[in-house]
């Protein structure tokens, strides 16, 4: 008979759900303990989470996922946390729908919109922050912080409140007021920096070093970025367990595009979907398009730029994952496209007036780029294409405020209404068509 000491460790071994093995440098493959760190000590490359895929494979299945919560935590097995007690606002599992009206207009028969603007704080940032803050608590932190162009600030503040953490958000001082309010409502300390996002980011790297807080997109970044994979997982599941033919993704640092692709690859590797050659295409605003430029010039170097665009949530002049995003676009035979601020605004109206989705400027960038890619034949009419809408229009009302139809003010009488009706019925056209 086995002694207690002999059998118990084995029972625990088999019951244990541990899945994070280490952090590994994407460049030189050096491994590090899975702590709060993001840069390789040896070559300064970015670190990524290494999973125990054999253990994950033994317990994950389509059925196990389908039984999970209706949030991104249904993919718990593939997220970089060990605890089951996650900090959540029920984020993720957002709608994916066949965009027939917009598709018809653009000549795309199989166009889908992934509407991630309906997350709890109205952007896809809830995905990365739920992951980051759950991991941060697991690593012993009680203060959370971020460098943000706005959406991230809102998410960090909300999750910080729910987790009962102290929260500090660092933003460029000229950020859209609705984003400042959207973060401020949750009660964080907001620090406005007189400078652009890249300067905010550099400062945060130094503050993270000095203060030992959990900066979600600095020292917690390897875990944080993994949250974006769920945008790949969900789309595959929502399409009936298959990968799309083509994804169109907005790019700032380039991380989102790389992680959506990684999500599809992980599903394939684990046998949850069949291998399928998904093409990945990236969208940027012309006033900040270092990744698109590098792709066009076939350059190995992503040349930093000074951002100048209304798409502030994408205004990262020195994109950390730009090199990797460009590599994936090339390797999958995708394309990169950039659009003017005018086209961004038209893109916002176009999506609203065809599909009823009001997106922020980043979504305008995606839709305007989608339109160009379709027109130039880079997206084929029958490709099952998914356009990712990552943020909500109520966050950037300023850019469309002066262009939406203004109300006609009349006295409360049918005669007055008839008068105005006759005036307007001949001339009014929707915007952006």
């Amino acid at each position, binding site marked *: 008979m086995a002694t207690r000491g002999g059998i118990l460790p084995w029972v625990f071994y088999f019951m244990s759900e541990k899945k994070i093995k280490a952090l590994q440098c994407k*460049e*030189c493959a050096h491994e590090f303990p899975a702590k709060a760190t*993001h*840069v*390789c*000590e*040896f*070559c*300064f*490359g*970015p670190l990524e989470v290494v999973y125990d895929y054999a253990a994950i494979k033994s317990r994950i299945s389509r059925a196990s996922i389908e039984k999970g919560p209706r949030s991104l935590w249904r993919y718990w097995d593939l997220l970089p946390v060990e605890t089951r007690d996650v900090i959540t606002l029920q984020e993720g599992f957002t709608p994916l729908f066949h965009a027939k009206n917009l598709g018809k207009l653009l000549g795309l028969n199989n166009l889908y919109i992934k509407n991630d603007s309906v997350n709890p704080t109205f952007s896809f*940032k809830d995905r990365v922050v739920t992951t980051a803050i759950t991991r941060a608590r697991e690593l012993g932190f009680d203060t959370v912080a971020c*460098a*943000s*162009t706005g*959406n*991230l600030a809102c998410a960090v503040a909300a999750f910080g409140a729910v987790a009962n953490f102290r929260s500090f958000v660092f933003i460029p001082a000229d950020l859209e007021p609705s984003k400042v309010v959207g973060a401020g409502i949750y009660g964080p300390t907001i620090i406005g920096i007189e400078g652009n*996002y890249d300067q905010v*980011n*550099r400062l*945060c*790297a130094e503050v993270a070093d000095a203060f030992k807080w959990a900066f979600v*997109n*600095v020292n917690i*970044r390897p875990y944080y970025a993994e949250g974006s994979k769920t945008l790949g997982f969900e789309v595959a599941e929502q399409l009936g367990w298959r990968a799309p033919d083509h994804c169109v993704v*907005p*790019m*700032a*640092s*380039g*991380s*989102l595009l790389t992680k959506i692709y990684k999500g599809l690859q992980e599903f394939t590797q684990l046998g949850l979907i069949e291998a399928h050659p998904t093409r990945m295409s990236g969208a940027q605003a012309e006033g900040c398009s270092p990744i698109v430029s590098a792709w066009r010039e076939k350059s190995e*170097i992503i*040349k930093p730029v000074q951002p100048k665009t209304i798409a502030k*949530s*994408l205004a*990262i002049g*020195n*994109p*950390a*994952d730009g*090199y990797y995003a460009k590599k994936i676009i090339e390797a999958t035979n995708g394309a990169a496209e950039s659009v003017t601020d005018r086209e961004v605004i038209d893109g916002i109206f176009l999506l609203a007036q065809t599909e009823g989705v009001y997106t922020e400027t*980043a979504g305008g960038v995606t839709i305007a780029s989608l339109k160009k890619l379709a027109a130039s034949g880079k997206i084929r009419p029958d490709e099952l294409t998914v356009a990712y809408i*990552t943020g909500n229009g109520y966050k950037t009302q300023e850019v469309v405020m002066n262009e939406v139809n203004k109300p006609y003010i009349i006295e409360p009488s049918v005669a007055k209404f008839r008068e105005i009706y006759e005036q307007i019925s001949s001339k009014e056209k929707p915007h952006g068509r």
Partner: protein
Amino acid sequence: MAVKVRIPAPLRKLTKEQPVVDCEGKTVEDILANLEKNYPGMKERICDENGQIRRFINVFVNQEDIRFKEGAKTVVPDGAEISIIPAIAGGVR
């Protein structure tokens, strides 16, 4: 040509914690070779196995990124200041 090279904190173990060291050389390549001679182990941290400067390390000659000049062949004027700066992996989307 004598130049001053600023060493980032993670590499200062190799320079006995000196933040700035003196070096000789006409080009960035020469400077790196000279740095390796005086502080063995430095080159493998800054350059990959093919001798190329690693992707996440920025080298500046008098505040100018050498990627936008002649790379490792960039000529270094006498008295120049060379900065070796790890790129910070950050960003949001």
